[in-house]
């Protein structure tokens, strides 16, 4: 293999591909990045066996070939180089990649490319087409609610449902549920319902930051995989096996109190309250009081630490229904309010121990359900 490319391109490609490098693996080749010439370009690949990424960068190929080299060492070295041309040559006998850039040189020992697991790339352009900003927003609004702990594997994933002209994503960790849908330009080829690891989606959101063209999402249920195809990047992820809980059952159909507040003000009040709440089981109490004839309602955001002190913020609110006092985990409120882009948000509640529903005002596509905290008295 003999190939040259620009330092900026290689650094960028490595930053993308290395998102899939295995961090703790018993298989040494998985901590490497595969570099292979591919029809006049250089392909960088990495996989941790759950997620695989292929990334193509522009290069001048003089001689075809492939090698895997330690991802961390290669990335650190390339990132330190000046923005100039890098010449790379593989010494096949020793499986060593030699790199030259300006006055810098390195020889990096690799592992034979034959030992690298094959990352399948779909050639056909099937699946659905998604605008990158919409896909990224969906992922941001849903994936944070997925479980981090592995005790119930299905909850570490995001449910993706395709039906009619709609893609719906849902995630729940046992204490909250986030659901977001989007309308597609064309009807889906066939209905599908799969669970995608939340981490895979978060990587899609991250590596598609510069993407301008629509992203194709292709579900291959028979292979238990999902593909995201971007202009120069392919990401493939294993699906999570199992049945996702029936989330539609969880979203309450009615409410007793509906409170509308300014999203940014509510978020700020929650952030301030969480300084006091972090010492007190992260409890934030909301006292909601309707005003006269639907005017002058109020939401009071409160946190109290026995040792440290307390805090209270009063927010103007449009309150419909009965007064209520309800407590939530500060972290949960903080996270959901951070992903709402509309200026106003509605909180629907029924009782201090019943789920709260959070919706952006004027946006039907997103709904979040959060369980309150029970405070013994």
């Amino acid at each position, binding site marked *: 293999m003999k190939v040259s490319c620009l330092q900026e391109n290689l650094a960028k490609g490595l930053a993308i591909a290395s998102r899939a490098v295995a961090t703790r693996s018993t298989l040494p080749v998985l901590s490497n990045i595969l570099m292979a010439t591919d029809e006049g370009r250089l392909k960088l690949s990495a996989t941790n066996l759950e997620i695989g990424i292929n990334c193509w960068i522009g290069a001048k190929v003089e001689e075809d070939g492939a090698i895997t080299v330690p991802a961390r060492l290669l990335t650190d070295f390339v990132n330190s180089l000046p923005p100039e041309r890098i010449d790379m040559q593989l010494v096949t006998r020793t499986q060593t990649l030699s790199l030259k850039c300006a006055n810098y040189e390195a020889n990096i020992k690799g592992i034979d490319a034959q030992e690298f697991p094959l990352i399948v790339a779909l050639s056909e352009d099937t699946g659905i087409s998604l605008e990158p900003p919409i896909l990224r927003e969906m992922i941001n609004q849903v994936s944070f609610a997925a479980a981090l*702990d592995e*005790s119930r594997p299905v909850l570490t994933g995001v449910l993706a449902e395709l039906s009619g002209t709609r893609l719906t994503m849902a995630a*729940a960790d*046992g*204490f*909250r*549920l986030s659901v977001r849908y989007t309308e597609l330009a064309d009807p889906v080829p066939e209905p599908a319902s799969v669970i995608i690891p939340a981490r895979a989606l978060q990587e899609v959101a991250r590596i598609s930051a510069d993407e301008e063209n629509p992203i194709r999402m292709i579900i291959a249920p028979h292979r238990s995989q999902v593909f995201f195809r971007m202009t120069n990047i392919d990401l493939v992820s294993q699906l999570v096996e199992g049945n996702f*809980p029936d989330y539609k059952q*969880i979203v309450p159909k009615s409410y007793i109190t509906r409170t509308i507040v300014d999203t940014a003000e509510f978020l700020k009040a929650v952030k301030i309250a969480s300084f006091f709440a972090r010492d*007190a*089981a992260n*409890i934030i109490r909301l006292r909601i009081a309707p005003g006269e004839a639907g005017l002058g309602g109020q939401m009071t955001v409160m946190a109290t630490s*026995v040792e440290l002190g307390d805090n209270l913020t009063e927010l103007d609110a449009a309150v419909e229904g009965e007064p209520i006092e309800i*407590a939530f*985990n500060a972290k949960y409120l903080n996270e959901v309010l951070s992903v709402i882009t509309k200026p106003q948000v509605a909180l629907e509640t029924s009782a201090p*121990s019943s*789920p709260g529903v959070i919706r952006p005002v004027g946006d039907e596509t997103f709904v979040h*359900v959060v*369980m*309150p*905290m*029970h*405070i*013994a*008295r």
Partner: protein
Amino acid sequence: MNSRTGIHPRSVIHVDLDAFFASVEELLDPSIAGLPIIVGGDPAERGVVASASYAARAYGVHSAMPMAQALRLCPHAVVRHGHREAYASYSQRVMAILAEYTPLLEQVSIDEAFLDVTGCEQLFGPPAEIARRIQQRILSELGLPSSLGVASNKLVAKVASTLAKPRGLLVVPSGEEAAFLAPLPIERLWGVGKVTAERLHSLGVQTIGQLAALPEQQMKAIFGSAAAEMHRRALGIDDSPVGVEMRRKSISQEHTFPRDVADIRTLQRYLLEMSEELAGQLRKEGECARTVVLKMRYPDFKTITRRVTLAQPTDLTEEIYAQATALLQREWKKGMQVRLIGLGVTGLGQARQLALFEASMPRLAKLSRAVDEIRSKYGERAIRRASLLKHDDE
């Protein structure tokens, strides 16, 4: 509060009844007065000394010592196995006397209390005078000897009463706290346990004064995040108020077996019983626990503790027991023998995150509360787990 600068020094009295259980036994049976008396469990069942009269202490007997050892030291001692109701009733009468002097009264245990008598001079005279009168009244009205310490804070008052024992009264004037503590051995200081004391000895630190003089860095290496607090204590500085009930941070139970236990099912039964007791206490206080701690002592006295932190705090027997028995199973090896088993919960709090799916939990919670109600109405034994019934026959 500004006890440090001495602008408003507080007056705190620590009252500690001398050899309380043994003294009550003397009152119940005057014929044994003055004899060496040991109150404690059955030596054949590995009981320990709960209290020893000063006559018994002269033989080297002290509380928490195994009964068998105590009786070797003092074979002719009068042994009593305890009259709990009598102790409780005498304790109540002592506290009633103390309560006449100040509402700022903090009972620490059955035989110990702090009083804040700041500003009571107009009514009862100077603090030393109040202390003398209290000691006199406990002796003349109830016949119980006590020792008292008077100082500007709880820390120093407690050390003073301990030094005054028996039947003593020691006053540490405001401003002399550090000088008073300085010559005392470091073991006298709150927060210095056996292990820390050994470590300090190895560094040549024997007295509280030497500890107070240690540079900050060395304090940090020994006490970690508690370094600043320990430095303050070594100087006799303590701002903790009297009468404010400290919120407990953990509760625990333990059981020493009459004979070493080699059967995991017996241990599990004790764990279930202790889980039931701990969970009941949590629910009574409206608290939930975040961490479950298992303690085991082997025949060679090696003691281990193992802990697990739950994803969500709990007040349910079933959850505490499930964690406890999982911890036990992880430690359990064939042929193992256990001398003592203990179970505790920490990370107590009053809030619980409700769950989206787990519909089974609220049912269990409702059941537990129903059981609590039956017990509060008809007594602890009115309703029991079938698996614990067998236990009684043994």
